[in-house]
C-alpha cells in the first residue's frame, strides 16, 4: 500500500515536472512558469499533513534539482519544498480546506518556497541576481501559482484523499 502510494506520488510529481519544463515555457511570462511541483506538494500536504508533505516535498525538490535543464546547486529546491510541505501540512490541522483557504495557502507556500530558494542562492552565491529582480520573479510566480490552483489543487487533493490509508479506528 505504501509502495503503491509512493509510486503514485512519484508519477504525479514527474508529470508535474515534465509539464513545467516542456509545456508551460510556451506560456511563460518573463520566463516564469507555474511551479506545478510545488502545487502538488501543497495539495498533498493540505490533505495528508506535515509528514507526508515534507517527504513529498523532498522527493519533488530532488527531482526538480536533478532533472535536465536544472544547473543550480542540487538540494536547493529540496530544502525549499521540504519547508513548504511541512508548513502546509501544519496548516491543515487548523483550517478546513475551503476554496479561499486553499488559495491563501498556495499563495503563502509559493512565496515561501521561491523565497527560500532565492535566499539559499544568496547564501551559496549560486546565481548573482539582484534582490529586486528576485522579488519580481517571486511575485510573478505567486500570481501564476494562484491562477493555476483551481485547475491543479482539486484533482491532486482528491487523489491524495483517495490514497489515504483505510482507517481502522471507527469508535
Amino acid at each position, binding site marked *: 500500500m505504501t509502495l503503491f502510494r509512493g509510486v503514485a506520488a512519484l508519477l504525479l510529481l514527474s508529470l508535474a515536472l515534465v509539464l513545467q519544463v516542456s509545456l508551460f*515555457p510556451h506560456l511563460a511570462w518573463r520566463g516564469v*512558469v507555474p511551479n506545478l511541483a510545488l502545487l502538488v506538494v501543497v495539495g498533498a500536504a493540505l490533505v495528508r499533513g506535515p509528514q507526508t508533505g515534507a517527504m513529498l516535498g523532498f522527493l519533488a525538490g530532488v527531482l526538480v534539482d536533478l532533472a*535536465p535543464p536544472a*544547473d543550480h546547486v542540487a538540494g536547493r529546491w529540496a530544502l525549499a519544498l521540504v519547508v513548504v510541505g511541512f508548513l502546509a501540512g501544519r496548516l491543515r490541522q487548523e483550517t478546513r480546506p475551503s476554496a479561499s483557504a486553499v488559495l491563501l495557502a498556495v499563495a503563502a507556500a509559493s512565496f515561501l518556497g521561491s523565497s527560500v530558494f532565492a535566499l539559499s542562492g544568496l547564501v551559496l552565491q549560486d546565481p548573482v541576481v539582484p534582490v529586486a529582480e528576485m522579488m519580481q520573479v517571486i511575485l510573478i510566480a505567486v500570481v501564476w501559482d494562484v491562477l493555476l490552483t483551481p485547475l491543479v489543487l482539486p484533482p491532486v487533493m482528491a487523489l491524495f484523499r483517495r490514497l489515504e490509508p483505510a482507517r481502522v479506528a471507527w469508535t
Partner: protein
Amino acid sequence: MALDRRQRREKRWKGTSRLDEGDRPSRSVVVALLLGCATLITLDHQGGDDSLVEPARRVVGEAFGPVEEVTAAAVRPFSSVPSYLRSKGSLADDNEALERENAALRAEVRTSDYDRNRLREYDELTRTAARLDHTLLPARVIGHGSAQSFSQTITIDAGTDAGVHTDMAVVNSDGLVGRVVRATRTTATVVLILDPASVVGGRLGHSMEVGFLRGRGNLSGTGRLDLALVDGTVIANEGDTVVTWGSEDGAPYVAGIPIGRVAAIFSSPRETSRRAVIEPFVDFTSLDLVGVVVPAGTEADRGLIRAEGEDR
C-alpha cells in the same frame, strides 16, 4: 438546523484529530529531511563539476530526457498555432520580420569588417579557416528552465549518442545561443549566454577589441548582455557587432560566431573598463531549432550540416 451543522463540524474536527495521531513522528522526519537537503547542497556545492551528485543528475536526466522529448514533440504543433491564427497583426508582423532581416543583413555587413581584419593577419588565416570549417549538429529544444531557478538553461534532444559533449558551443541561424554543460545519452543541458554565470569572450567586429560578455538574466523581457572591454580607452559604437573571439581548440566557443550588437554604452569613473550593453541577435524566447558545433568527422545518429554543404 444550526445544531445539526455544528454537530457535523465537530465530527469533522474529531476526524481530523484522529488523522493527526497517525502523523505524529513528523518532527524527526522533517529534521532528517532538512539534514538530507543540507548534505545534498554541501556535496554539490563543494564538489563542483565532479561532485557525487553528478551521477544522480545523469540518472535522472536519462529517465526524464525521453519523456521531455515526447512531451515537447506533442506540444510543438499547438505552440505554433498562435502564429497561424494571427491575421490582424500579420502585416505588422511582416513589417517586423522585414526589419529584423534588414538588421541582420546590416549586421552581416558589419561582420565583414571583422573578416577583413582577420584576413589581414596572415598567420591567423589558416587557423581561422580551419576553425570556421565546423560542422553543425541540428537539435531541437525540448525543455526550458524556469525563471524561478534564476538560471537560464534549456534541454536539447541531442546527447552523447549524437556526439554531443560538454563545452560545445550551441548556435542557431541568428547567432550564439550558449554552451553544453552536461550531456546524457539522449539529451544535453545548455546554459544560455544570458545566464548570470555565463562568461563569453567577445570581440568587436569593427575594431577587433576584445572583452568579456556576461549574462544579465532574462527578466527585462528581452535578454541583455554586458560587455566589458579589456582596453578602457577603446570606445564601442552603438550598433557595433560583437562576435566570439574563440578559445583554444574551439572549446567551448569557436571564433567568429555573431553574438549581438551594442545597444548602449556606459562608462563610470570607478570602473577601469567601459561597459557596453549588448542586444543578442538570438531571440531566446522562441528558441526551437539549434545547432551544436561539433568537430568535423563526428559520428552522429542524424544528418549533420557541414560548412560547404547547403545548410539550414
